[in-house]
């Protein structure tokens, strides 16, 4: 059966690509520290020597729209074009083409449906920065086949937080039951406190540093009990109006397992939002 060699949860900051590639006067003062942290984070994936990446993210009203909105969707295609005109325009993100791992997509869909998740699917999915940002930060060669999984953290009504956790737990079991010798990393991105298009956006820190601190502790310690006690669909409005993206972190806590401490934890306090990076090694940390 396949093995999960790394579980990775991260914020997806669309400004990283531009900040890290800027030079001279265009290079922001925080770019060097940010790049150092990303290179260290990248090493946690590289060391795990994955063959396949399961990528959990959320479409930002690119391909998925209010006339036909799935809650959880699995891509099943041989290729995925990536990044959109408005992401080039605002963030300077490059167009990309990623290979798909259709066999694993099909396995996740079949087993997920049988496990009680009525997963939507797409055979032609253009993915966005929720998935390409971690490709850029963690695997910039973009050479590994992927299975994209989209969650709806964006267009209410949303699934409950516990449903994200349950899906994460099922994804772990399903990937581990995939009849394959391949090494799989499960990577998901979300947000800590975040405000977009509201009065608290683009402040000197994330809109709710206290929430961020608690959230990082929940994730780092795998404290799903406390996290599920504290976090509701209503409560997530308080830290910032886009904080429902935190539920993708909760999904990844489900993949990692309740009570399992992360093997790698790092954060970076930036303007607008706090960056956070976590890696778990379900089979023990790889030797160098």
């Amino acid at each position: 059966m396949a093995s999960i060699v790394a579980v990775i949860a991260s914020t997806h900051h669309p400004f990283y690509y531009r900040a890290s590639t800027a030079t001279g006067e265009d290079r922001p003062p925080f770019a060097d520290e940010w790049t150092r942290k990303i290179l260290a984070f990248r090493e946690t994936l590289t060391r795990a020597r994955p063959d396949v990446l399961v990528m959990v993210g959320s479409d930002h009203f690119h391909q998925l729209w209010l006339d036909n909105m799935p809650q959880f969707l699995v891509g099943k295609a041989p290729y995925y074009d990536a990044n959109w005109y408005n992401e080039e325009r605002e963030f300077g993100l490059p167009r990309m083409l990623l290979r798909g791992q259709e066999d694993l997509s099909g396995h996740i869909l079949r087993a997920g449906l049988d496990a009680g998740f009525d997963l939507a699917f797409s055979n032609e999915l253009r993915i966005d920065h929720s998935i390409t940002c971690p490709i850029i930060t963690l695997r910039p060669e973009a050479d590994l086949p992927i299975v994209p999984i989209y969650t709806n953290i964006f267009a209410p009504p949303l699934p409950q937080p516990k449903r994200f956790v349950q899906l994460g737990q099922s994804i772990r079991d399903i990937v581990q039951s995939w009849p394959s010798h391949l090494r799989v990393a499960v990577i998901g991105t979300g947000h800590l406190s975040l405000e977009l298009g509201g009065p608290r956006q683009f402040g000197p820190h994330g809109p709710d540093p206290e929430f961020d601190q608690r959230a990082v502790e929940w994730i780092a310690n795998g404290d799903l009990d406390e996290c599920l006690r504290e976090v509701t669909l209503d409560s997530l409005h308080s830290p910032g109006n886009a904080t429902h993206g935190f539920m993708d972190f909760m999904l990844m806590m489900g993949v990692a397992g309740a009570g399992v401490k992360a093997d790698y934890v790092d954060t970076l306090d930036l303007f607008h939002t706090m960056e956070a990076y976590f890696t778990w090694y379900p089979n023990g940390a790889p030797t160098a």
Partner: protein
Amino acid sequence: MSKYLLNKFLFMVDRDPELVERYRSEPRELVSWWEAECANTVLNCHTGEASTWLRFDDVEREALATHDHVKLFELGAHPFLTLTLFIALFERDNTEPLEYQKSYGARLAHFSMPYPDIAT
């Protein structure tokens, strides 16, 4: 009132560079044209099929025609859609980094929790 239609306008204009420019330079004309020609388009569907019932009310139409992102927030338009499009419209006028983004937030400072409902 249709939060959905407000969102549909923001979504469709934002993804089309030509419409972004028309909305920046002639917002009222663009809104009128879009409501007449595009509001009832069924996206991701065969051309030639359309809805028949979608239209703005006067407040919504005026908010869009005057680039009034504060009113759009009040009406429950999706903040991500509004922000993304308005950055495309006006960030180019910045004289320092994030100037527009910060002033956009400052103009919303009178809103407190809970914010207007964005559920469609």
